[in-house]
């Protein structure tokens, strides 16, 4: 009886893990390319971006899950999760990266969305989107008000949407 219970527990745990791997695989199939593109824009190094992609997807398996499914379902949730992870991973590696490969930054493909923005709009959007800056910190850095920074961000979205 006890043995049967142990076997059942083991198989339940196995099913949970398999289910979780499946849900991460679904997320990978849907968003891996987008995430790699995003990470590349942040780190500007293809190999490092691929390495971070592996680390971020692997780390999803450590998240608390609901019945074997990872709580992250949408691109926005994955992006927020990636930003927090990337901030920590990239801070750890920033020193090694700049010293091991000096000047080894790769220029990405021309971005039709960002090309439509003016200098200020592009800076606000990139600082928030790629580098996880808060509105208040960015306003201080740009020597402007928070309201104006938010407005600039709004304009950036509107311009990118209109050209989409």
């Amino acid at each position, binding site marked *: 009886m006890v043995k049967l219970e142990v076997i059942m*527990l*083991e*198989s339940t*745990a*196995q099913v949970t*893990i398999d289910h979780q*791997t499946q849900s*991460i695989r679904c997320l990978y199939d849907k968003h*891996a*390319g*987008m*995430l*790699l*593109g*995003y990470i590349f*824009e942040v780190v500007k190094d*293809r190999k490092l*971006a*691929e390495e971070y*992609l*592996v*680390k971020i*997807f*692997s*780390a999803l*398996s*450590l*998240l*608390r899950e609901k019945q074997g499914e990872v709580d992250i379902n*949408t*691109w*926005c949730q994955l*992006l927020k999760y990636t*930003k*927090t992870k990337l901030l*920590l*991973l990239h801070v*750890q590696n920033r020193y090694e990266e700049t010293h091991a490969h000096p000047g080894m930054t790769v220029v*990405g493909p021309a*971005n*039709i*969305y960002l090309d439509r923005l003016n200098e200020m709009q592009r800076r606000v959007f990139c600082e*928030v989107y790629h580098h*996880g800056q*808060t*509105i*208040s910190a*960015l306003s201080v850095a740009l020597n402007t008000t928070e*309201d104006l*920074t*938010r*407005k*600039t*961000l*709004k304009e*950036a*979205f509107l311009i*990118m*949407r209109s050209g*989409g």
Partner: protein
Amino acid sequence: MVKINEYLESGALESYVLGAASKAEIEELLSLKSKHPQVEEALAILEADLERIAEHMAIAPPPNTWLKIEASMNELVTSPKMEYLIGEEPVERSRPNPGSRKTEQFIEVEGESGHMRIHKIWRWVFGAVFILGKIFLAFAIYYYLENKHTQEEIQQLKIELSNQRKK
């Protein structure tokens, strides 16, 4: 109505979607979202925008990436590394493995290895015991053969003595 339109135009939703909003701004947005369906609609549009921008910037990962992720996940399940746990609540879990599944409630004190470590001095003690054993064995064989030989001689002498008496 004017107020909510002003809010939608302020850029607060954009900063929220990008994760750049402060705690107070998030709370304000969540309370407005429950009252005004326009906020939810605007958020859905912004999320779609973000997805479209990301799709445009997408780079196809190399074909073996998923295998690397799978291998890394298996490794993490058995021994989570610190760099993955930063910013996470620690989760205790392990892949079911016959033999190692003692119980999840107790810390395993007894090692699973069948080997034990002892002091080097015991090597000399075991060597001495072995050599002494061999010496005792050699003596035992020697005295056994000696005793047998003596017994045979006594027997021989007894026969000779009885023959002489008969004569």
